[in-house]
């Protein structure tokens, strides 16, 4: 194996297959895929298409029927599963905190197994609670039942991050949380990922969540067919087939506005010399957010990076490279 592969690719799935005993069809049919280091990959698809099965094969909670799974250049089927899992964060929808242990103890479990000393572990617990937005003094000694659903999942994320694993597996982690809290958790998690740059494999059945979070999205169809694996932007502008088109729903062009930035779009749009007060924006802001400001402040001109662009041109430049064969 060459060095560049070892450093670039974090996970490599080679023809990974799972057939549960006494079932007529593969739960995961031969799947090959490469996930890069530091990449946030989302598996999305209807219920029963094998997302959970695939995710759980990566940390060997489920053994594949055939195929290979490489993590960091090592074939995971030749490693001790417990040792493997201690270095992979795992977050599930039901959270699964140990109800008889305090928040601090829950987070300490993996560091304990890895033989960290008490002081280092305690410092790490406080650091992680801060990181997930829970005040250590308030929450350290609480029990899971004394927390809201959202707070429990924050602890779930902190626990998964405890030993600073390079890889996180997350199975619908925000699926059981009410929509408003979920939105906040997603935003905070994105901000957190900006800082910690983990490789993340994230499962959801919610295409909006996938588009919001993923660097790349794997869309699975029924029968575990991988329909498309690409960036949100490519998926929205060039859906691979009818399944993907129907899965991303009616408003693909509108959704696209939240995944493209004004910086890149303004580069494509013609400059205007029309007079009038412009709204200025940062290049990395999504078009949707900037448009929202333009509408509420009644500005027809955007100024970004010294270039003045009309709202209308901004809109069409955002969605202009969309191809809709239908």
């Amino acid at each position, binding site marked *: 194996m060459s060095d560049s592969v070892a450093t670039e690719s974090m996970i490599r799935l080679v023809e990974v297959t799972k057939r549960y005993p006494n079932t007529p069809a593969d739960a995961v049919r031969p799947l090959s895929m490469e996930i890069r280091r530091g990449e946030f990959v989302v598996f999305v698809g209807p219920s029963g298409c094998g997302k959970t099965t695939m995710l759980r094969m990566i*940390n060997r*909670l489920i053994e594949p029927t055939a195929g290979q799974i490489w993590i960091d250049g090592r074939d995971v089927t030749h490693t001790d*599963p*417990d*040792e*493997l*899992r*201690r*270095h992979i964060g*795992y977050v*599930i929808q*039901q*959270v*699964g*905190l*140990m*109800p*008889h*242990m*305090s928040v601090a103890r829950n987070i300490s*479990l*993996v560091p304990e*197994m890895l033989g960290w000393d008490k002081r280092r572990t305690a410092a790490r617990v406080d650091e992680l609670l801060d990181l997930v937005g829970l005040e250590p003094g308030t929450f350290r000694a609480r*029990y*899971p*039942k*004394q927390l809201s659903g959202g707070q429990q999942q924050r602890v*779930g994320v902190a*626990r*998964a991050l405890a030993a600073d694993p390079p890889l996180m*597996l997350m199975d619908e982690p925000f699926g059981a949380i009410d929509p408003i809290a979920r939105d906040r958790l997603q935003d905070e998690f994105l901000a957190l990922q900006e800082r910690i740059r983990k490789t993340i494999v994230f499962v959801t059945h919610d295409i909006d969540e996938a588009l919001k979070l993923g660097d790349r999205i794997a869309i699975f169809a029924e029968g575990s067919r991988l329909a498309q694996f690409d960036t949100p932007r490519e998926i929205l502008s060039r859906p691979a087939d009818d399944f993907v088109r129907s899965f991303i729903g009616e408003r693909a062009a509108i959704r696209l506005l939240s995944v493209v930035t004004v910086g890149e779009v303004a580069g494509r749009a013609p400059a205007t010399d029309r007079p009038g007060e412009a709204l200025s924006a940062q290049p990395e802001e999504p078009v949707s957010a900037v448009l929202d400001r333009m509408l509420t402040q009644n500005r027809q001109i955007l100024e970004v990076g010294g270039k003045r662009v009309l709202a209308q041109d901004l809109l069409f430049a955002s969605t202009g490279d969309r191809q809709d064969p239908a």
Partner: protein
Amino acid sequence: MDFFSYVSQHWERISFLGMQHLQLVLIAVLCAGVVSLGLVAATERLPRVRAALLSFTGTLLTIPSFALFALLIPVFGLGVLPTILALTVYAVFPIARNTVTGLEGVDPSVIDAARGMGMSATRRLFLVRLPLAWPVILNGFRVATIMVVATAAIGAAVNGPGLGELIFRGLSRIGGANALNEALSGVVAIAVVAAVLDLIFVAIGKLTTSKGLHV
């Protein structure tokens, strides 16, 4: 003579038999605990064997205690051994049943999370499954104990130790002097032993169950 004078006059004998009774019960429950936990552990991967064993020990419970003691006489003779053995037989079912129920009742997502973070099977058992099943297991011990306290009285029929002696002797010479008081003192003492043990179990439960489970 009224009952209270009877008790104070025979206090030494009653309390001696009471201590014997208590020892008998604790030994039987301890043996049953070892047997039950052993059975549950041995059948961890054999759900059918486990189910069969549970229904078998449940069936043993339906043998009338007098009959069971009598059945053991030809094999083990009279005295302490057959009594302890019979009581152990009775105590196995509630303990084993509750241990299984308690372990099965542990939230599967908690176990999944434990596996997912790399806890070995042994660690999961001692750090997660047993502590979470503990209140239910302990309750099995409590039910077994109270049941055995009452049943142990029958042990006197095979010359076993304990408070049953008071009841059997009293009843066998009913009409005689203080016969009723003697039998009654046995009954009351057994109730007191049961109540005390019950309170002890409540205290043990409070002390050994994580605060996180009852907040």
